[in-house]
């Protein structure tokens, strides 16, 4: 079996299938990122952050260009063993049951062809495989199994905003994070350095390169790095035959397989499908519906920061999320929009980031007022993120760029995106409620930023559904058009929810592996 992409989905599929007895080869265009390469030991770590997230800024040999249209400014991703989990914050929430029934409940978007209950056991397995910190008992979500490690410290920042939540009577809970708080699975406990998004050099953050991959490789999986897939090939019957890929020297190879799983993220996956044209699939592989690349979702997001008289030292402690609130998660039409949002209590970076404008992106004044502003702000801030559900819209899309190519001559991905009216109303409400929360927590000043126009949660572009005319994969992530092709990553999402996607990506991937294995008689 062939898996393309080694991130949170590709690694989970590979490990699960290998455990079950399959022979799996994974092709990854990036390479291992050795912990020594992370700049988190250097004074310029904050400026390195500016280039680490963006393939168009890094321009590493393994990166491909991602051009943008609409109001989108940039797309974040990593191309490496472990995929973007190398740089994610590692906040690890689950979708809620209603997220799988948005059309039925609220009359918008789509229903998933699976329910929360179908995914729940896989969430548990994924949490154990990855290593998660947190605490069960959250009244905002269905009961879940005991968390593999206890919650990370809240810090002064978390303890302060907790009082604000309670003062307002709002629901909140300490966040699940894929960062281990105790020694777990041979990995050390987090030491609260606070530089998680550069990549964790001690391995406490549960990125796929330190969780699934070592175990999958010990079981016999083959991981071929610096191998960039150009296209999926098809056989004379219209089934997939394998993949043609470039090695790091630019030599072409074909890897044959009885089953192909594509896990290249919500941008890379449609790019590869659209570039895999043949007489059977003239508009791209598995694209008879025309839905490949459509319905790109990234979450409606904006941030606030509360400034407090006392020090919060927000740069101390794991990133992930400190705490979260789903007080405004579900639809209440009196608010003027459908669906809702999650509040994430975040942490800060260091002084450079604060001077540049912090989480709200408003630079500190220069000149005579600079030092006073820095004294008031630095280490005195609680950042709060409003992350809202992004409804699918066919006009928001990933397509092939006709003018730009990567270093192997493969067309770049072009992502076109605009925030809809629902997003803007939702964010307006979230910013107003966020201000209430920060003031209730004791903030002496509250600032907010604009709606975010950068994408880091890449979802929806090969979506799951029962109707082959309106979706790309079925309830088991199998392509409607191609019986031995599976697609699993953020692209499979029918809706975005308002929580970070990686936990759900991992759970879906494990379930997909079971589905492939359960039908193994079809491939042999």
């Amino acid at each position, binding site marked *: 079996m062939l898996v393309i992409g080694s991130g949170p989905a590709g690694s989970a599929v590979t490990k699960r299938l290998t455990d079950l007895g399959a022979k799996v080869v994974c092709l990854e265009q990036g390479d291992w990122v050795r912990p020594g390469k992370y700049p988190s030991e*250097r004074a310029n770590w904050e400026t390195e952050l500016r280039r680490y997230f963006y393939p168009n800024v890094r321009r590493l040999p393994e990166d491909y260009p991602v*051009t943008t249209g609409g109001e989108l400014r940039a797309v974040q991703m990593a191309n490496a063993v472990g995929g973007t989990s190398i740089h994610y914050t590692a906040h690890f929430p689950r979708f809620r049951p209603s997220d799988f029934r948005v059309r039925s409940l609220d009359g918008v978007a789509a229903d998933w062809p699976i329910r929360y209950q179908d995914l729940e056991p896989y969430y548990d397995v994924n949490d154990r495989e990855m290593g998660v910190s947190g605490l069960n008992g959250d009244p*905002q979500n269905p009961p879940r199994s005991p968390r593999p490690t206890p919650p990370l410290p809240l810090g002064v920042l978390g303890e302060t905003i907790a009082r604000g939540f309670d003062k307002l009577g709002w629901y909140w809970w*300490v966040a699940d994070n894929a960062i281990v*708080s105790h020694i777990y699975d041979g990995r050390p406990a987090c030491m609260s350095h606070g530089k998680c998004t550069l990549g964790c050099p001690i391995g406490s953050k549960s990125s796929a390169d330190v969780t699934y991959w070592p175990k999958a490789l010990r079981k016999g999986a083959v991981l071929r790095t610096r191998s960039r897939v150009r296209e999926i090939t098809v056989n004379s019957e219209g089934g997939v035959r394998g993949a043609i890929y470039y090695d790091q020297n630019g030599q072409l190879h074909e890897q044959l397989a009885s089953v192909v799983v594509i896990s290249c993220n919500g941008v890379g996956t449609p790019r590869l499908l659209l570039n895999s044209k043949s007489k059977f699939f003239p508009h791209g592989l598995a694209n008879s519906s025309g839905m490949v690349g459509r319905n790109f979702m990234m979450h409606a997001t904006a941030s606030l920061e509360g400034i407090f008289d006392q020090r919060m030292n927000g740069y101390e402690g794991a990133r992930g999320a400190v705490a979260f609130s789903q007080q405004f998660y579900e639809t209440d039409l009196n608010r003027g929009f459908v669906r809702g949002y999650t509040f994430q209590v975040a942490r800060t970076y260091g002084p450079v980031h604060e001077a540049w404008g912090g989480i709200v992106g408003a630079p500190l004044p220069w000149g005579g007022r600079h*030092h006073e502003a820095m004294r008031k702000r630095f280490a005195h801030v609680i950042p709060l993120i409003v992350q809202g559900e992004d409804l699918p819209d066919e006009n928001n899309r990933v397509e092939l760029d006709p003018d730009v190519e990567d270093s192997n001559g493969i067309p770049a991905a072009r992502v076109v995106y605009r925030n809809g009216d629902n997003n803007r109303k939702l964010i307006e409400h979230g910013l107003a409620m966020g201000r209430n929360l920060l003031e209730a927590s004791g903030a002496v000043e509250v600032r907010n930023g604009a709606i975010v126009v950068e994408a880091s949660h890449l979802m929806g572009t090969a979506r799951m559904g029962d109707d082959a005319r309106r979706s790309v994969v079925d309830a088991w992530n199998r392509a409607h058009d191609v019986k031995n092709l599976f697609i699993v990553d953020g692209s499979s999402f029918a809706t975005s929810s308002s929580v970070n996607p990686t936990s759900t990506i991992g759970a879906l991937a494990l379930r997909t592996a079971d589905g492939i294995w359960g039908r193994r008689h079809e491939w042999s």
Partner: protein
Amino acid sequence: MKKLSRRQLIGTGVAASIAMCAAPTPACLFSPGGGAPKGLGSVRQLLHGPQRDLLRAAIDEIVPAQDAMPAASQVGGVEYIEQLTVRDTKLASQLLEALSHLERLSQERFGLGFVGLSGGQRITALSELEGRSSESFGALRDSVYEGYYEQPSVWKLIGYEFYPTDGEGPKVRPFDSQILSEVAKKPAFYRGV
């Protein structure tokens, strides 16, 4: 959003350097000899004598000395920015544009170069630059902030502890579930489906 051109994607290297001086851009006009910069190394050579004085004067207005806090140039701001320009052609172009624009504004408004202006006049010139050329001014301001706040001597003054990941982290109070006691009493708050 404008699509990135192939040249923008190539970004660094000779193509950008050539493009920078294919037309008489402010950066090229700013070169003391009027010659084309030869890659990033040549950008550094632009900042000799009066140009370095101009950069120093500008960054010390952006982050001035005040009470115990040093001015930007007192913690190596000029040298830091020169190093930045060596690494990043796009930034080099923006910074040179900012400086040449600033010098031009100073001459137009006060009949003097920026270095020769009074403190108040310098603030006026920089404010005009900020209003008229916000992108290049922003690049200059952000570079000054970056160079300033990466200095351990400044960290001490603002109470920042770096915690490199090859050493111990901060001492943070362990999680205490008591903090959840109030919310934990609340009824379930999700739609069962």
